[in-house]
């Protein structure tokens, strides 16, 4: 009797493993696929090689002499961006006061950075801090005029700082208004419900640019004589109205997802309407819609560029003004790529964050 002895496993065919195997399954799985791959590779060669050459290999990264950039043979002139970086970030904020903006940037990073880490324990209190204390502190720091800080008028605000301010105010102010509107839209009182529906659909139906035009030309008309609205404040009011309508719809989605039993249980416990909302419904609903809120925030963040049209100097407007400078030659593309990159980093980061949250909050029920 000889023991049964299995032959050792044969190695898989060389053509299905390793790099070659990967190529065969992903790029050359069929004749058609091979042809497509080759064509795409050729097109990529034609476009990406000159692009990289322009952006990296023959680019000017730093120079003391602007004239270098005027040379046609030279690629991208990133030195221009480096030269104006302060202006693009802080606008025309007084140079000796820039530390105040820097503190705000630091606070912003501190209050949102930890949210990305799973293990950080105080996420909730940090979230509340960033929605309540942080805006107030930042306002005092940026505007000044109190606590011994020198006042900086809003027309000196600009650049990336202004973009962030508009986006942040938009979201922080729109959140409570959106919650109230969403509750109102689900109310049983016909007057309140109708008003909320009309308000929401009105703002959602028109483009933001017309809202901005409206707030810049019509708000002064609506107010008693002598009321002087700041240009930035007018834009912020318009953006908040617009944004809160979108926010209301997102939150309504969350409210609808809460099972009826939760409302009934809250009622059975004898909680009043506002108490049941505050303690039972809203904590659950808001948690559900955080990804949606982040997504509306991304849209709002991109839309802040529209303030350029009503004459505020956000990052795009600042860059638009600076690329006119003839001493650097044509730096049009470089300037726009820089702005695009700034927005892309924020938006892409946030969208990844919201996708991660969605996966985390999506517990079960997934078929």
């Amino acid at each position, binding site marked *: 009797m000889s023991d049964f002895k299995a032959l050792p496993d044969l190695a898989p065919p060389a053509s299905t493993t390793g790099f070659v195997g990967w190529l065969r399954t992903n790029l050359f799985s069929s004749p058609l696929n091979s042809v497509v791959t080759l064509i795409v590779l050729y097109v990529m060669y034609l476009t990406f090689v000159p692009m990289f050459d322009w952006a990296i290999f023959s680019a000017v990264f730093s120079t003391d002499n602007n004239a270098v950039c005027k040379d046609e043979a030279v690629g991208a002139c990133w030195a221009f961006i480096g030269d104006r970086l302060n202006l693009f970030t802080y606008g025309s904020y007084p140079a000796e006061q820039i530390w105040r903006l820097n503190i705000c940037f630091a606070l912003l990073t501190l209050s949102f950075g930890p949210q990305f880490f799973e293990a950080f324990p105080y996420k909730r209190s940090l979230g509340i801090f960033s929605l309540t204390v942080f805006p107030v502190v930042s306002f005092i720091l940026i505007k000044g005029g109190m606590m011994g800080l020198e006042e900086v008028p809003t027309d000196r605000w600009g650049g990336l700082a202004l973009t962030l301010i508009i986006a942040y105010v938009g979201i922080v102010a729109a959140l409570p208004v959106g919650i109230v509107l969403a509750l109102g839209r689900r109310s049983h009182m016909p007057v309140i419900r109708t008003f909320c529906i009309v308000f929401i659909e009105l703002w959602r139906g028109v483009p933001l640019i017309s809202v901005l035009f409206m707030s810049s030309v019509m708000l002064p008309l609506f107010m008693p004589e002598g009321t002087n609205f700041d240009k930035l404040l007018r834009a912020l009011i318009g953006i908040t109205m617009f944004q809160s309508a979108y926010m209301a719809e997102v939150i309504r989605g969350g409210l609808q997802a809460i099972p009826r039993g939760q*409302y009934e249980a809250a009622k059975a416990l004898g909680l009043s309407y506002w108490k049941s909302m505050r303690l039972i419904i809203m904590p659950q609903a808001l948690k559900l819609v955080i990804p949606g809120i982040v997504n509306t925030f991304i849209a709002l963040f991109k839309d802040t560029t529209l303030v350029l049209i009503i004459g505020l100097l956000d990052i795009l407007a600042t860059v638009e003004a600076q690329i006119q400078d003839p001493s650097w030659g044509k730096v049009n*593309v470089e300037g726009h790529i820089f702005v*695009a990159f700034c927005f892309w980093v924020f938006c892409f980061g946030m969208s990844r964050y919201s996708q991660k949250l969605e996966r985390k909050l999506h517990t079960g029920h997934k078929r």
Partner: protein
Amino acid sequence: MADPTQSRTTSNSSKTAIWNDPTFRSIAYQVIAVAFLVWFFYFIFDNTLTNRAKSGVTTGFGFLDETAGFGILMSLIDYNETNTYGRTFLVGLMNTLLVSVMGIIAATIIGFILGVARLSHNWLVSKLATVYVETLRNIPLLLQIIFWYKILREYLPGPRQSIHLVQDSVLLNGRGLYLPQPVPESGFGIVIAAFVIAVVVSVAIVRWAHKRQEATGQQFPSFLVSFGLIVFAPLLVFYAAGAPMSFSYPALKGFNVQNGLRLLPELTALWWALTMYTAAFIAEIVRAGIQGVSHGQSEAAHALGLRNGPTLRLVVIPQAMRIIIPPLTSQYLNLAKNSSLATAIGYPDLVSVFMGTTLNQTGQAVEIVAMTMAVYLSMSLSISAFMNWFNTKMALVER
């Protein structure tokens, strides 16, 4: 609907204080809300009237009949400086609709191609499509519009050095994109008539084939037949009638390009940017739609003996479309609303012409803003009405 304020008054409500009675409360809240709204609107109305009286602007829509006195870069209808402000409204509206329709068509085509490309088994193709989508979605549209416009204006050569594309029939230079313009000659009407007849006959054939299949189970290649009919019948008539259409090709004459259909750089840049941006969103919608049809559906279809083609056509695509169409319509709506960014580059759309120039000249802020908003609002309300109708029509009919 669950609303805790919903009233259920008990019969012995005499025991409850009146301010604790839900019905009373609900009425009181609403009365307060109405009173506040009335006061608020009266407040702004009164202020507006006072402010207007001070600046000497007359209220009302009378300004629409006054002479505009400014030129507009591009107009689909006859327009010159002597026309009225009402006419400028129409010109702007037409331009908005033009760029929206052009954008919707192009973005749908590119978006569907990209969406399918993202699901491609070819790694390179799907990764390239992903990079495209993730890049374009996360850059503000306004930036893209301005960027392409500047590129068209500053980096393209003058008319004499135009870039020649498609065997000289398309020219591109700093003054715009020149396409060959079809010029119908006498007798072209017959071709159009043939096309209309072919469409009507195809509809009839499809209905008949459907009925026959329901009754007898016999299939009829109605798609191929109607496709052939719609494409070849007009072509046949076209050549039979002696090809009654010529093209006017753009050509350099003197210092400028003459003939052909000229797309202004403003329009080209806006169209291009809107298309590329919206296509990225549509690609995501298409991908989600196709992935939303569960794999079991195509397996079941295969098990029933359907081959790949019919499986895709009869099982996967109808279900994917049900997922795709609602968000797709809202993307179309977004595109139409986003076309208002034309203001930034001076394309004469509704916002730029009417809310910009006309408003600055007349000072009729309230009327003009209201009219412009009403246009966009009615656009969005009609699209959402369509969407609701479509949703109810396409909703899964379950037992």
